């Protein structure tokens, strides 16, 4: 689905890898390594300074930017909901493309396990966990084929984080989504990921299967990171 060839964007230096359809990839590494920078390159929230990115075997710049962003959904660490009701947030994306259908609302809330009565709730009255569920549902409303997740549970308490994680696991399986998730939680990485990309000092240090990578790191850098 995505191919990165020698991509640079400070602090990333010449990163090369490929993401295939339905891959479940965990992106991890120390703070400031370039994880968010890398994530933002997938839906062109920023562009690389060097190298090339291919989406569906075509240069990413050739794709219409708004359609690309619709297909490659992003969930950030904070929910960043728009002022208004849950419904306002859910229909925001589809309404941009004139694709909103009122019947979708119930389905979306079902996905993230929130009752239908939440539709008319003002978002500032929701708990942190509920807000993050709405944020996830808002991204799903666009029916993306890939989800970019930037530490979506790190601001939540353990129990709520686990609940969101369960929702994510089920959704990704049911919708056969491709996933790229940034997390600092290695237990979560084991639970949700098949493959890992370890980034440190702006370089892709390791790319491999998740349990093996974490159990037997090939590089000194990953070994040290896991020790910390």
């Amino acid at each position, binding site marked *: 689905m995505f191919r990165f060839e020698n991509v640079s*964007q*400070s*602090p990333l230096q010449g990163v090369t890898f490929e993401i295939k359809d339905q891959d479940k990839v965990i992106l991890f590494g120390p*703070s*400031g390594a*370039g*994880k*968010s*920078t890398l994530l*933002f390159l997938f*839906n*062109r*929230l*920023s*562009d690389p300074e060097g190298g090339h990115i291919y989406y569906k075997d075509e240069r990413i710049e050739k794709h219409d*930017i*708004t*359609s690309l*962003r*619709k297909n490659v*959904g*992003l969930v*950030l*660490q*904070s929910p*960043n*909901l*728009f*002022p208004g009701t849950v419904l306002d947030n859910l229909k*925001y*994306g589809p309404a*941009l*493309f004139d694709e909103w259908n009122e019947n979708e609302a119930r389905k979306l809330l079902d996905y993230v396990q929130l009752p239908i009565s939440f539709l008319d709730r003002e978002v500032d009255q929701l708990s942190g966990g509920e807000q993050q569920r709405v*944020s996830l549902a*808002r*991204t799903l409303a*666009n029916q993306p084929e890939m989800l970019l997740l930037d*530490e979506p549970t790190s601001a939540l308490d353990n129990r709520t984080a686990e609940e969101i994680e369960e929702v994510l696991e089920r959704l990704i399986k049911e919708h056969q989504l491709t996933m790229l998730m940034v997390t600092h939680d290695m237990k979560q990485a084991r639970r949700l990921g098949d493959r890992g990309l370890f980034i440190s000092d702006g370089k892709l240090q390791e790319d491999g299967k998740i349990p093996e990578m974490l159990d037997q790191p090939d590089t000194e850098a990953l070994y040290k990171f896991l020790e910390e």
Partner: protein
Amino acid sequence: MSPEISNQSLLFLIVFVVVPLTLSYFYQLGMSRDILWSSLRGTVQLFAIGYILTYLFDLPASFGIPLMVGIMLIIATFHARQKGKELPYVLPVVFFGLLIVEVSVLFMWLTFDMVQFRPSEVIPMSGMVIGNSMVAMGLSLERMKSEFKQNNGRLLAALSLGAKPKQASHLIVQKTLHAALIPNVDRIKTIGLVQLPGMMTGLILGGVDPVMAIKYQLVISLSIFSSVSISAMFVTIAMYRYFFNQNKQLVESAEEIESQS
């Protein structure tokens, strides 16, 4: 009341300066120098502008008015741009905004015979319109910058859902305009109840019939109301696009988020 204040009477104004000076001394505020300097500077500035105005009022209207309005526009432009000097094209945007406001207000005044084309009427009234518009533009620029910073996450969320810059920044434009217009709405609401507006007070003290003074005050208050709205709207709508690049990306957003993670 006599419309004339004698120079001796003016001298007693020093009492009004001594009060804050004494306060500063007793409470060790360290502001004595500032108080003295600002009082002196204000006095000199006012007398200077008094003499300049006397000279301008004697000039033919077709020369004096464009000259003074032009100077006011230039000074106001440079002052307002300070609030957003890091943004591209802020100088021409502010200048044309102020020019459009001034020309449209002047057109209304003259067409409907609210104000005579005389330096003594047009210059002070234009000064009030340009001054208030300048403040509104500066505040809008400042507010817009802080809203963009505060709402970085929401903007990224909107863009990532497929919003174009105009759609993504709708909330920010709305908040900026709201903030710029609210003080004006409040001012108009309480006009004459909480305080008698400056121009009206001046005219009444100058011996003008209060009803006539109110008419002038209405002209200037509503002109300012309208110009402040146009200024805020113009600068906000013209400038929000420079927070994005041509690829519908927030300028510097990724780096900011990275440095926070």
